[in-house]
């Protein structure tokens, strides 16, 4: 099959929202592009070709997200798409650029790659005001501050998502947020009434909480959740540490004298 027919078929499938089918076609299309050298975009290619390839890869990312591809796979697609946004190519700006960048940021956030997230953010200038980019930026801020109720709303309520793809990527975040809350609660409370704990951890049924409590070694008695106290770390300086640093000082002084 030629590239044109492949692309056309891909676009039709995309429009029909047959994501699995489209995702199946993607590797073939990428192979064809690679043969033409379009996977390494440069100004040697015509702008039409580059724009077409860019659009196709953009769709590819969305398709892969809908088809439930692994994070590593989506990440790779982003890496392939990135060179097409280089201003050196002098292409007309893509309407989807900020949306895709936002999705990439979100992906980094779900994988807990915070350093990478900030590295990416540093390269974007308009993150505060963009409809799509705002979302991952705010979400990261809430998570870092500890405003988990807002973060929870952001990842669960439909009205909060700027586009349906965001909902798919944030699914992993729900358990992350819950674990964060659990870890904070262990330190902040000695015990909590069962109903309150359920509310705090955003569980809808009591059974879910019981299961969750068991997994984290919490004991439930008299309608309260008792958190296992984490052993305080040894605060007093250990004798071995003291001896070894004293010996180190002694040998240093020896060399000086």
């Amino acid at each position, binding site marked *: 099959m030629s590239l044109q027919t492949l692309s056309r078929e891909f676009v039709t499938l995309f429009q029909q929202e047959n994501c699995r089918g489209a995702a199946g076609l993607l590797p073939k299309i990428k192979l064809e592009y690679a043969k033409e050298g379009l996977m390494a975009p440069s100004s040697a290619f015509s702008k039409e070709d580059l724009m077409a390839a860019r659009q196709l890869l953009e769709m590819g990312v969305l398709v892969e997200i809908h088809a439930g591809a692994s994070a590593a796979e989506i990440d790779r697609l982003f890496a392939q798409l990135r060179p097409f946004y280089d201003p*050196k190519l002098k292409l007309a700006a893509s309407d989807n650029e900020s949306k895709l960048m936002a999705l990439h940021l979100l992906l980094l956030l779900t994988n807990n790659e*915070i*350093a*990478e997230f*900030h*590295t990416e*953010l*540093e*390269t974007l200038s308009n993150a505060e005001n963009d409809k799509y980019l705002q979302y991952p930026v705010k979400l990261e*801020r809430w998570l*870092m*501050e*500890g*405003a*988990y*109720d*807002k973060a929870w709303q952001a990842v669960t309520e439909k009205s909060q998502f700027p586009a349906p793809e965001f909902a798919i990527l944030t699914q992993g975040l729900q358990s992350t947020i819950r674990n*964060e*809350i659990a*870890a*904070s*609660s*262990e*330190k*902040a*409370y*000695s015990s*909590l*009434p069962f109903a*309150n704990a359920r509310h*705090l951890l955003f569980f809808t049924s009591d059974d879910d909480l019981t299961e969750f409590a068991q997994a984290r070694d919490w004991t439930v008695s008299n309608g309260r959740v008792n958190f296992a106290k984490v052993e305080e770390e040894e*605060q*007093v*300086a250990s004798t071995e540490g*003291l001896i070894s*640093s004293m010996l180190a*000082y002694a040998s*240093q002084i020896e060399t*000086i004298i």
Partner: protein
Amino acid sequence: MTNGPVDEIKHNFVYLDKALSGYDARFTLKVLRGLPALRRQLDSEVLGEIIKSTYPQNDPAGQELLRVVASGEAAGTVATKMSDGTEDAVIELPSPETDAYVHLLVQIWLLHRDVPDQFYTFSQTALAHLRKYDRRSLDFVVAKIWFYYVRAAELTDNLEHVVPPLMAGLRTATLRHDAETQGMLVILLLRSYLLLNKISQAAGIISKTSFPPAASNSLAARYYYYLSRVSAIQLDYSSAFEQITAAIRKVPQSPASIGFLQTAHKLSIVIELLMGEIPDREVFKKPEFRRSLAPYLALTRAVRAGDIQQFGSVLVAEASALKADHNYALACRLRQNVIKTGIRILSLTYSRISLKDICIKLCLDGEESAEYIVAKAIRDGVIDAEINHQYGYMQSKEVTDIYSTAEPQYTFHERIKFCMALHDDSVKAMRYLSPDHAADLKEAEEAREREKELVTEIQEGTDLEDDDDFEL
């Protein structure tokens, strides 16, 4: 026209030759140190005269230099022909050092004439011309030429084109153990990447190359600055702070480096704030920093007060200044620190405070958020407290005596480690005379002996004559 600059440059040629014959880079460094003062006196006439008296008549490099100098001068006062020079004697080819130095002078002259395109093209030809030499005595001059090459690329918006030549240059410099150029190129690569916003590539360079310890201090200071910036972006604040401190300490404490110090202090303040510490007030008070650090002082005040609204307004008011310093994104991350400081202040002030009051005092959006935020602060070790969910308050725990913990021991250890490192570094930085100086030393010793004898003789003599003189 005065002969001042021409004479000075010729004098510098002698120094360069001395550096070559004595294997002593100090003379080259002395010449390079004179550059800032010399650059104000440079004009096309001076350069023309220098080139004519340095290069043989039909040397292509000399002709090229003259052409550049002449084309830079709109009035065309410089004759392009070599034969116009007054010298009749045949001039020998200049030594590579002199050759490189003249190229460097022309580069500097072009930079200050504000002709970026010409500056860029000339820098390219200069590098291509000097590539044929492979002498360690050239390192310092060539490193400078690389520096101006990248500066030219920056001015002409050609930064992405310089990366491949820089990489090739780095490879060559590393193979030749050319520490100065190697260090310079690593810095230039980092700078280019950071300006192009390619932070992950910059991080790649840092992890894949090692900065030569033999490179000069001013290069090391810049290297540490870029290192710190990358670490800060990647959230590794404690290393970033160590690196920026190293940069500030390494930089020469002269008025010429004030720009660098200001920039470094700006970054240092933001990093310190991000680490949850408050920078020393002394830094802001210094007269040379007061104006440039003003936005950062406002930022520090907001963080110190733990006032989220004040922080928000500072961020808006100083956005342009922070963006110009490339510190805006870092400053935005401070939001969570402001909240934490606020909670810490509340926890220290009240032994028990309701979540609602926390919410009001910190201007948070809701009591529910406040509870989560306080819980996270407890977990992060910002405060030592407990939350009572039923009655909705935060109860601070008794402050433990810090001297009963290992903390003083740890701090003391850190300080001792620093002093030891300082001692070791100063020992390493000492200069010792090379073995062939031993002979000179012996002679000097003998001379001193003779002098001593002479002195005693004279003294004895005067002692004897003392009585006579006294009478006069």
